[in-house]
Structures are given as structure tokens and as C-alpha cells.
């Protein structure tokens, strides 16, 4: 394989051709300053555009998209470049690109997503072929689940892609969001930022919300516009974590109404029992069994007697009967 060095005129390079770009993005200020001061230090890679009536510009960028943008902003007219062999077709050029990039570190999910789009779209490769040959080149295990998870990620809005790249958005949630309507995912992302959800909560809330949408036959923006939901989210006197807890309760009530009603009844019985903090009474998780567990602490005989009296009083007031009827 022979790469040819050349000084390419900026006007000869089709900066709008993003076919080979693995991760869309803009040059940052640091790169802009550096290119303005020093020019392009490391040559970018180009492919000669072939065709009967070779249209201008002659070259397609293969690497160095951000440097190219910085060069244009700095007003450079010529930049150093390496030209890929002329006899390479797009597939060979793409393979070279993926090998180069994959040798440095495994592809990120977003890079993989863009690569999958190029390979399965313009390059017409099958899913099996991409998994078998190209995933290892990307430093990824040839796992069909990864393929399904990564493939739609490039459809996410730039804001969500940035959140994913910055590890602020859980991979699985991003994958699920990618197959939702744009309005849904933007509404969710807005909610996630309002409540400052961590990645585990994002996953949990996304699943609950998706289920509620299907149960209620309503979209997420429609759900969030409901007065009860809106007023909670707009409430000024709650911290994000208080809001998150209340919002979770709201979601549970909608997703599991029968269970939530039982839980609410249990909590109201407990409130009316006015138990001291040293005495705890718990049902089985999710009320799956019929037992209750009581535990209490004491340090004197008088405290011990007081705890027992509290329990006896609960029975005398019929609260124990009501509790056992609950399960």
C-alpha cells in the first residue's frame, strides 16, 4: 500500500463530503487556535474522486474533518495531505480507515453507529458481514446485541449524542431512545436534566414512562403536559432529589395502580398507628407474601413495655386486622 504526500489546495477538497467521517463534530477553540498559529501539522488523508467527468473538487476527505474546518477558518489555502492509492474503491478506503482507527482503541458506540450506517448503507454490506469482519476491526466483539444497540445511535440529536459521548446518558437508554420519536426523546432528555437523573434513574424512568405511554395510549409530551405532572416539575420549593422521589411515586402509581393503592393504604394505616421511630413494621416486598415483620429496639425494661403496649394498642384499635386484610 502506498500513500502519496501532496499539498492540497483547500478548494480542491470537498469538505461537505462526510462519507468517511466516523464521528460528526466541530473543531473546538483549541484546535482552531493551534491551526491558526501553526497550520496543519499532521497531514489529513484524502481520496481522489474518480469519475468520467471528474467534478471539482477533486478530493474527498478520509480523515481530518475537524482540521479541515479549522484550516478553512484560519484562511489557509493549502494543507499537507496523504493521498490514498488511486486504485482503491470506497470499500478499501473505508477498511483502511477502520483499521487505522480501530488499532488505536475500540470504536465508541457512536463511532460504531456511524460506521454501521456507512457499511450497511452505501457500501451495501450485510449485518452478518459487518459483525463477522468489521466489528473485530473496530475492536468490538461480534455480538448481534451490540449491533442492534449501536446501529440506531446516530439518529439521536447532537445534544443527546454529546451526552452519550460525555457518559451522561446511559448506553442502554440511549439505544432505546434512538428508536423513539424525536419529540419523545427530547422531552425525556429535558425531564432528565430537570430532575438531574443519574444513569440508573434514566434507565428506570425511561422504562416506566415507555410502559405508561403504552398503557395510557399517550405520548411523553402529552403525559408531561398533564396538570399533575406539570405542577410537580414546576414546583419551586423542592430540591431535584425531592422532585425525583415524588416523580417516581407518580410513575409507580400510574404503572402499578393496584399495588400502589395497597401501598398507600398500608402507609396510611402506619401513619394512624403513630409508631415511634424505634419500632418498624414491614410487609413482604411488593406484598408478595402475607406476613408482616415487626422489629424494635429498646434499652430499658420500660422501653420494652412501651413498644409492646404500642403494638397491643394497634390491635385494640383494629389496625392489625386491617393490615392482615390488606395482604
Amino acid at each position, binding site marked *: 500500500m502506498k500513500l502519496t504526500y501532496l499539498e492540497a489546495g483547500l478548494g480542491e477538497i470537498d469538505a461537505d463530503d462526510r462519507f468517511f467521517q466516523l464521528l460528526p463534530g466541530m473543531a473546538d477553540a483549541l484546535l482552531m487556535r493551534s491551526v491558526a498559529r501553526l497550520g496543519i501539522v499532521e497531514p489529513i488523508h484524502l481520496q481522489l474522486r474518480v469519475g468520467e467527468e471528474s467534478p471539482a473538487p477533486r478530493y474527498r476527505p478520509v480523515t481530518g474533518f475537524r482540521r479541515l474546518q479549522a484550516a478553512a477558518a484560519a484562511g489557509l489555502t493549502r494543507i499537507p495531505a496523504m493521498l490514498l492509492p488511486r486504485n482503491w474503491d470506497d470499500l478499501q478506503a473505508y477498511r483502511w480507515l477502520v483499521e487505522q482507527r480501530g488499532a488505536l482503541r475500540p470504536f465508541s458506540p457512536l463511532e460504531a453507529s456511524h460506521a454501521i450506517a456507512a457499511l450497511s448503507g452505501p457500501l451495501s454490506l450485510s449485518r452478518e458481514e459487518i459483525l463477522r469482519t468489521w466489528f473485530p476491526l473496530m475492536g468490538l466483539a461480534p455480538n448481534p446485541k451490540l449491533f*442492534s444497540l449501536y446501529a440506531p445511535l446516530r439518529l439521536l440529536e447532537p445534544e443527546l449524542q454529546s451526552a452519550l459521548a460525555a457518559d451522561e446518558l446511559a448506553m442502554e437508554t440511549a439505544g432505546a431512545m434512538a428508536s423513539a420519536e424525536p419529540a419523545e426523546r427530547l422531552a425525556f432528555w429535558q425531564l432528565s436534566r430537570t430532575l438531574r437523573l443519574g444513569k440508573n434513574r434514566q434507565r428506570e424512568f425511561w422504562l416506566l414512562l415507555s*410502559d405508561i405511554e*403504552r*398503557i395510557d395510549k399517550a405520548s411523553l409530551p402529552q403525559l408531561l403536559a398533564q396538570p399533575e405532572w406539570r405542577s410537580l416539575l414546576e414546583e419551586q420549593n423542592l430540591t431535584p432529589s425531592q422532585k425525583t422521589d415524588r416523580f417516581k411515586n407518580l410513575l409507580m402509581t400510574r404503572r*402499578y*395502580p*393496584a*399495588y400502589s393503592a*395497597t401501598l398507600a393504604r398500608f402507609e396510611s394505616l402506619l401513619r394512624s398507628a403513630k409508631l415511634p421511630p424505634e419500632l418498624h413494621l414491614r410487609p*413482604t*416486598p*411488593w*406484598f*408478595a*407474601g*402475607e406476613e408482616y415483620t415487626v422489629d424494635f429496639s429498646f434499652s430499658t425494661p420500660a422501653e420494652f413495655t412501651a413498644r409492646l403496649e404500642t403494638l397491643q394498642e394497634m390491635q385494640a384499635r383494629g389496625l392489625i386486622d386491617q393490615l392482615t386484610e390488606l*395482604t
Partner: protein
Amino acid sequence: MNASRYQPFLPDRLYIEEAVQNNPWTTRILARLSKAERIPIPDQQALPPAPAGKNILLSRQRGPFLRYCPGTSRHICCLYHNLDIAAGCDLGCSYCILQGYLNVPMTTLYCNLDDMFIELDQVLDSHPDHFYRIGTGELSDSLTFDHFTAWSSDLVNYFRQRRNAIIELKSKNTHIEHFISLPHDRRTVVSWSVNAAAIVASEEPHTPSLAERLEAAAEAQAAGFWIGFHFDPMIRHEGWEEGYHEVVEQIFRRIEPRNIAWISLGALRYPPFLDEIIRDNHPESRIFLGELLPGADHKFRYFKPQRIEMFARMYRWIKAHGQETPVYLCMESDEVWRKAFGWSPGSSAGLKRFLDERVGG
């Protein structure tokens, strides 16, 4: 009458392990599937990864055929035995547990039935006082491949001669032709998994219809077989009461209580890892939208009062046709039994006795 939506499964390709190549049960399958491509292989290791099309592996069962039903902790189990003669199914029900459980590379038929009968002889002969209810419907559907295996005939013939065991052929399918006219001495229960019409339509789209299953059940009844029904999994959906009640009525219009070995009820339940699999494989399904919560054995089940309500109503509807028909719950606690039925067998041994007695054990 509407044409059946069900298409009998016919494989494109048969991978045949060397160990069963000349075995009579393999030969029988090959004779019935003359159009399928045949690929001899030394063993499963030689299988290509994920070949396209409809494939079947004809294999040798290397472990025991007979296994105790795994049951589940803190629940009453009927102490059933599974006979693993096949693993995999073509019917593709959305809730099927096999989606997450099977660790075989493709649908597999274990053709060394000679070994199976030796094993059965050994086990049944060495415990003459123990009664065995045995079924082939755990890792597959008992009849779904029977149109080309005809293994039902071997099983019916074998169990006809056993006093301490009964075989249950549990199915959603209607391939009864290979055993229906055989003598059976009531040592075979032919049972059908049934569900509300809306669930059959949405969650079991590749199966024979309910009417077809009941037609087959009526034929089996006419041939003198014990008949069983399994309402499992019962799924809460809009109109579930009418849906399930109607199935109960349809059953009793065709089948006499004295011929019903048992009716089991089980509500939708699955281990947590299956939730994601069902969502991925069947995104249109709504079954995972129920109030499914983790139980003591960590499986997702409907919130307990909802299960009790479903079972209690079913019990009432079934018992409205007389007290004779035994009804039991699959994998439920003593508490749920008591609250739904007003009685409980108290333990797995109690439930086993209850069912054994019905079929002469």
C-alpha cells in the same frame, strides 16, 4: 369454516449427528421429510453458527431423559417429571419461556428413544410404589413435530403397559393422527394449553386456533383418552373475564367432566431476564405491561390480589360445571391456593396425591 392459520412445521434442513444416523427413530423422520436437505455431522460441535432457514438437529440425548420438574422455591409444585425428547418449538408464543432458557444451538430432537425406554424401565421398575406423572411438554410442545416424528405412538404404546406411570402429551397443536386409534388403557393424558381468544390471536399467532384444539380434544375424548387443559399463562387483558369464561364454557360444551384428568391454572410469570427478551422479540405485545412484580422466587408475577382474583373466578366458572373436575394451580403458594380456591393441598406432596388419585395412581 375458516382455513386454519396454522402451518405445520416442515424443516428445510436436517443436521444429523453420527450417533443417531442409523437409529430407527431417525430413519422414520427421514422417511417423512424426504424434501429436507440432510447434512450428516459428527456431533453438535460441527454445526455452523446460526444457519438461515428452518433447521432441525437430530441428536442423541447425552444426559438423562427423565428429570424432576424444577419447581420454584416457596411454591406448591405438582412433582411432575419431564421427559426431554425434544428442545425447541416452532410456535413462537410471545411469552414462551424457551426464548430465554434453551441452550441448544437449534431445535433439537433426541432420537435415541431406545435409550429413553431403557432409562424409563429402570426408573419405573426400581420404584414400583411411586406413581409418576410424566410429560414431554416442558422444553417443547409435545405434538408440534409429531406429524413427522410420530413419537406419540411410541409413548402411548409404552405407557399403556406401565401401572405406576402416566404420560401427558401437552400441546397447543392438533397432530393427534399417530396415536388416536391406538389402544392406550387410559395411561395417556392428552392435554391442551388454552387461552382467551384475544390472547391466542395476539400472543400465539402461529398456533392452531382454540376451536381446532378443542376439536382435537373432542376426538381424543371419543377415543377414550384422558383430556387435560392448561390455562397457562393466564394473562390479564381488556375483557379477560369474558375471554376466559368463554373458553371454560367452550370446553364443557365439548368435553365431559368425567374425561377431564385435570385443569391447571397459571398466571403469567417469568424470570427477570426474560422481560427484556420478550420486549425485544415481541415489541408489539402488551403482556409485559401488566402489574408484574418480583415474587419470593424473584420471578415476575401479577400483583397477588390480581392473581387471586383471576384464579378464584376461574375456579367458580369451572366448578359451575360440577365438582368432579380437578383444578390445580401451577407454582403458587399455599396462601394463594387458600384465598383463591378456599382450600389448599398444603404441600407439593399433597398436590401430587390429589392429581395421582385422579388418574389411578
